């Protein structure tokens, strides 16, 4: 037992520099380069002028900082004949994403709460079907949904695309909240029942305040997922409400004439900015969300 200090792996980090350690760091640093170089290239390209880009030195720093490409990307880049930049797409993405996130997270919380504590008849069956539905490729649903939405007058509208995001977001948020509420002691729920609180009162006054961490995680997962969506926005949003991802692709891939790579990269960064900001400012929460959502596999 006197040797416990020797075999205990915790404590100060090893100071010996061995070949293995050097190899380990070499591997980590080259991996870090692989992951960061594209972001670096994106940023420097967006700050260069076209003559500089034509010199074909993609890794070089710009001669001087030139933000004109960003201005064009935001308000003047052309997608086909229309030259309004990515600004409208940004606004559309905000208008699509915010209500979709709020509504789907709210439904997810209610579902999770009802399924975990009240266990309505058929609840497990519904949950199973919902999880199975999450595995179905969207292409299977698209045509009937387009027809249904068209019949209701919701096709190609902001309300339509928000509803679509809520419908397809339900499995993930329900899963997150069901798994979260399962960890809350049932006694708490039973005590509130004995005190005479009803379904909504227990939800609003006890369960919702307790589930703030999961609300944050779920909102973040939904936000990045919906912001990054391309397919549903393309099909359901309609020309006037196209999300940023679709407009970005239109700007970059349907240009006629010279391709303005600096503008393209600026527009690409602008589109990635919101999810990246969420990720960098809340890394651990993001990871938690991924881990919680991945369990369904």
């Amino acid at each position, binding site marked *: 037992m006197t040797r416990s200090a020797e075999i205990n*792996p915790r404590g100060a*980090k090893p100071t010996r520099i061995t070949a*293995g350690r050097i190899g380990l*760091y070499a591997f*980590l640093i080259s*991996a870090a380069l692989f*992951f*960061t170089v*594209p972001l670096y*290239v*994106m940023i420097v390209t967006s700050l260069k002028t076209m003559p500089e880009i*034509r010199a*074909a*030195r*993609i*890794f070089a720093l710009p001669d001087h900082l030139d933000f004109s490409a960003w201005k064009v990307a935001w308000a003047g880049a052309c997608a086909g004949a229309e030259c309004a930049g990515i600004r409208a797409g940004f606004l559309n993405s905000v208008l699509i994403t915010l209500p979709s996130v709020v509504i789907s997270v709210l439904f997810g919380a*209610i*579902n999770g*709460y*009802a399924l975990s504590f*009240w266990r*309505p008849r058929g*609840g497990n069956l*519904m949950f199973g079907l*919902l999880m199975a*539905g999450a*595995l179905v*490729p*969207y*292409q*299977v*649903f698209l*045509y009937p*949904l387009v027809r*249904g939405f068209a019949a209701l007058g919701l096709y190609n509208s902001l309300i339509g695309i928000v509803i679509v995001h809520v*419908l397809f977001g339900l499995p993930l948020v329900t899963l997150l909240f069901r798994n979260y509420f399962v960890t809350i002691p049932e006694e708490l729920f039973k005590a509130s029942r004995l005190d005479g609180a*009803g*379904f909504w009162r227990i939800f609003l006054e006890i369960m919702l305040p307790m589930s703030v961490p999961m609300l944050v995680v779920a909102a973040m997962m939904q936000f990045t997922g919906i*912001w*990054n969506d*391309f397919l549903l926005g393309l*099909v359901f949003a309609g020309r006037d409400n196209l999300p940023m*991802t679709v407009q*970005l*692709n239109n700007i970059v*891939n349907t240009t006629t004439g010279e391709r303005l*790579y600096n503008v*393209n*990269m600026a527009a*690409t960064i602008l*589109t990635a900015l919101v*999810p990246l900001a969420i*990720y*960098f400012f809340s*890394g651990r929460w993001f*990871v938690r969300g*991924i*881990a919680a959502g*991945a369990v369904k*596999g």
Partner: protein
Amino acid sequence: MARRQKKSFMPALAILPTWLTVVVVYIGAMVWTLNLSFTKSKLFPSGAYVGFDQYERLLGSSKWIKAVSNLATFGVLYVLGCLVIGFCLAAALDRKVRFENAFRTLFLYPYAMSFVVTGLVWQWLMNPVLGVQATMQGLGWESFSFDLLTSRDYAIYGVVIAGLWQGSGLVMVMMLAGMRGIDVEQWRAARVDGIPAWRVYVSIILPQLGPPLAAVATLLTMGVIKTYDLVIAITNGGPGTATEVPAKFIMDNLFQRQNLGLATAAAIMLLMSVVIIVAPFRYASYIRAKRKAGVL
């Protein structure tokens, strides 16, 4: 009695919207699509049933066959690549390295971005005239080649690289979480026996990571089957049909070629592939859960 009724009524009402979603949207739309796939619908749905004709047409379509084989190539390389890279990164970070958090943040950030962004960045990097290839050649490395996307034979590998860049971090996070849950005693035993660290990861740690490995592999495979945005952004299926994928084939036939019957048949095929891939995993975890319950 009135109280009892109130109890059972509200929760059921609360989950009613989700029930409606499941029944009307999920099941209803699926049945409609399945039904359409047996008709000869073109631009508009048709009531004329043709049995499995659309499926035969599909299997006779060289574009569909190419799309499926592309997806197989992409899927195998992407899933295995993500698993191998992700596992190695996790093992490296598990070795008590400095700046672990910084490394982890850098490995995972691409996962937060949209496939469109990923596709466009790699399209630019692989630009044959102004991209990485031209830069390296300009620096004197004349034979350097990185214009995968313009080649009919190699474009799909370009898509794989972009996919690996985005997806490996996910595996890393899941594997690292699994490794941190493993008993430290095993490390002591391995050290006493003089087993090298890499050997411990491959022979002792890896087999214990079965469940998270299966979960993340399923997740990645589901992503593969749905692959659409990435291909649209990076190559739009080209050159020719070099990076055509089933999801894109369906979208084209649904909205551009007005080939409703064929598109829905293809969508059902996609669904079948999901069932074939997911069913064994589900069955395995069901058996595992039962065994666990039996032991307890």
